[in-house]
């Protein structure tokens, strides 16, 4: 077989194949629940109602989507410039650490301190990604492996922090940090509803990134570097500088996931603050076709699958890991769909 590039793929191709990918994922979901001995249609129904069936369920889905929007944006921004940031998990924790550091110090000025927490988080996340990217641009070390390895180092660092210097003296011996002051939590978006401003911030971030990509010179340069770094260099774009800027933005976005989880939801830092939000961000970004607004939609979808599967699992007895399987399958189908949209398969 041979792949022939299509110069101008039609809208039917560009959106039809991704739609097929989602349909195929639903099919796999049915097969998996059938294997698990449950009624496929009932399982799918339980996932949908579990994620959207009540006010509580919807709020839970929105809360779960919040960190995924941030990590999804982090990955989407980086991947667009072909910067393979697989370290959103580490950057998230770096953000969470700084949030607690600033959030547990006594400033006496909450209006200044909350933004300072966010800024410190962004700076820490950006720095964490800067390391691997400098290794890439300076020594040619593949950033995939270094960012992956850094995730493990960061998690051990956090493990040390919450058992040692940052440990909550009032925590009954549990490995968790001292909580952030009550006045320094993100307020709720609507009084009485359990949804914090982290979600609003995430949507705002998506809009800003969209504007940046569509309207700014940097956005154009990032796309050019991603499409063909060599050509970009010949046309006078400082590729290294663009990659470094991309790293700062991407790392900062992932760190905001840590900030919003601590300041909006948990209040303190633990080793299990993120159940793999950084890795799931890759799925979110790919499902969104790397588009910032798409990231918000994809994050809601992915969060819905997680929340829905949790509640389905309690009712139908299908293991919750079905959610992880479905998301991995949807990722692979989506990559294939994107390939098929741009190429025609010729059997010769």
């Amino acid at each position, binding site marked *: 077989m041979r792949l022939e590039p299509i110069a101008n793929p039609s809208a039917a191709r560009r959106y039809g194949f991704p739609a097929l990918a989602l349909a195929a994922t639903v099919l796999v979901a049915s097969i998996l629940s059938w294997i698990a001995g449950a009624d496929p249609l009932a399982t799918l129904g339980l996932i949908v109602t579990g994620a959207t069936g009540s006010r509580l369920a919807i709020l839970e889905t929105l809360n779960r989507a919040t960190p995924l929007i941030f990590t999804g944006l982090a990955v989407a921004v980086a991947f667009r410039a072909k910067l393979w940031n697989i370290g959103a998990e580490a950057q998230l924790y770096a953000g969470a650490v700084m949030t607690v550091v600033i959030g547990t110090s006594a400033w006496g000025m909450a209006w200044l301190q909350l933004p300072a927490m966010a800024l410190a988080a962004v700076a820490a996340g950006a720095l964490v990604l800067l390391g691997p990217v400098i290794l890439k641009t300076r020594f040619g070390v593949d950033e995939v492996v270094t960012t992956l390895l850094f995730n493990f180092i960061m998690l051990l660092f956090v493990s040390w922090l919450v058992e040692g210097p940052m440990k909550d003296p009032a925590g009954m011996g549990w490995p968790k940090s001292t909580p952030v002051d009550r006045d320094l939590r993100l307020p709720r978006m609507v009084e009485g509803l359990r949804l914090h401003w982290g979600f609003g911030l995430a949507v705002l971030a998506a809009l800003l990134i969209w504007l940046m990509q569509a309207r700014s010179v940097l956005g154009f340069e990032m796309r050019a570097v991603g499409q063909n770094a060599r050509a970009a260099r010949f046309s006078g774009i400082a590729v290294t500088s663009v990659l470094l800027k991309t790293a700062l933005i991407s790392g900062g976005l992932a760190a905001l996931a840590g900030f919003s989880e601590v300041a909006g939801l948990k209040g303190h830092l633990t080793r299990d603050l993120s159940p793999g939000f950084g890795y799931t961000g890759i799925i979110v970004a790919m499902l969104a076709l790397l588009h910032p607004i798409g990231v918000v939609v994809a994050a809601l979808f992915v969060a819905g699958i997680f929340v829905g599967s949790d509640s389905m699992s309690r009712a139908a007895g299908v293991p919750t890991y079905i959610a*992880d399987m479905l*998301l991995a399958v949807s990722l692979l189908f989506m990559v294939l769909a994107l390939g098929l949209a741009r190429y025609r398969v010729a059997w010769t």
Partner: protein
Amino acid sequence: MMALVDILISASFWAAAIRIASPLIFATLGELICERAGVLNLGIEGIMVMGAFTGWFAVYQGMPLWGGVAVAFGSGMLFGLLHATLTVPFGLSQHVVGLGVTLLATATASFAYRLALPQVTSPPRIDPFQPFAVPVLSDIPFLGPALFTQTALTYAAFGMAVVVGLVLYRTPLGLAVRAVGENPAAAAAQGLSVTGLRMGAVMFGSGLMAVGGAFLTLSAFSSFFFDMVNGRGWICIALVVFGAWRPGKAVLGAVLFAAFDAGQVRLQQTEIGAILPYQVFLALPFVLSIIALIVMSRRAEVPAALMVPYNKGER
């Protein structure tokens, strides 16, 4: 300082290093074969989890230990086929597909484990491979207990390294695999099937990765845990670079690395371990991998067509 010397001159330390190196050797050889054919296989971490699970489960269901190894190899080949289909004929991003395969294989192993054993609180055990003292050789002082009282799977790991080295450098098949990783267009002009060779290499390599995972359940521990692979796959990718894509050097790197790992466990028991937090020791293997990547980056001989998809008729 004395503590360090005491560790280095004990045969049990080197025996542990060889044992820890074994799964890394299998998986590193697997990754090396894929990359030599021009395909970066980031599915390694998940495929190791899959192998650890399927190998263990087969034995738990009553198969012999070598049957478990074969089942693990087969499950690895299956995920290798998935990876190869998407990355070779379809030429899709090897980064994204690899991560997708890791996520899928990890989730599938967890899903299947929960489905097969819904109610277990403590992971069930199997009878793993037992150490086998090689006659005569195991009587050599120091070297005997260190090298020749290992489990059969460890001997198999080192044997596999020899086989892979011989095949890659001494057979037409090895030459063909290296050719499609260096210059696929020239290889195709010679009448070689780039697609077939690459897919075969990825499938066989993935099988070896799964056997590396199975070592953990069939030889090192006797139960399956969800997070037992714990980044070993990513470390193996670093080991391939450290070994400059050569089987011999890669095995040396794996043993060196395992010696550090065995050493940090022992150092934790000494007065140094009392001063430093245990996380420092656990982070050491990952820090070491990054340092190895930086050091080797200057003189690494990367296969020229690594991560470059080949499409007939495209120049």
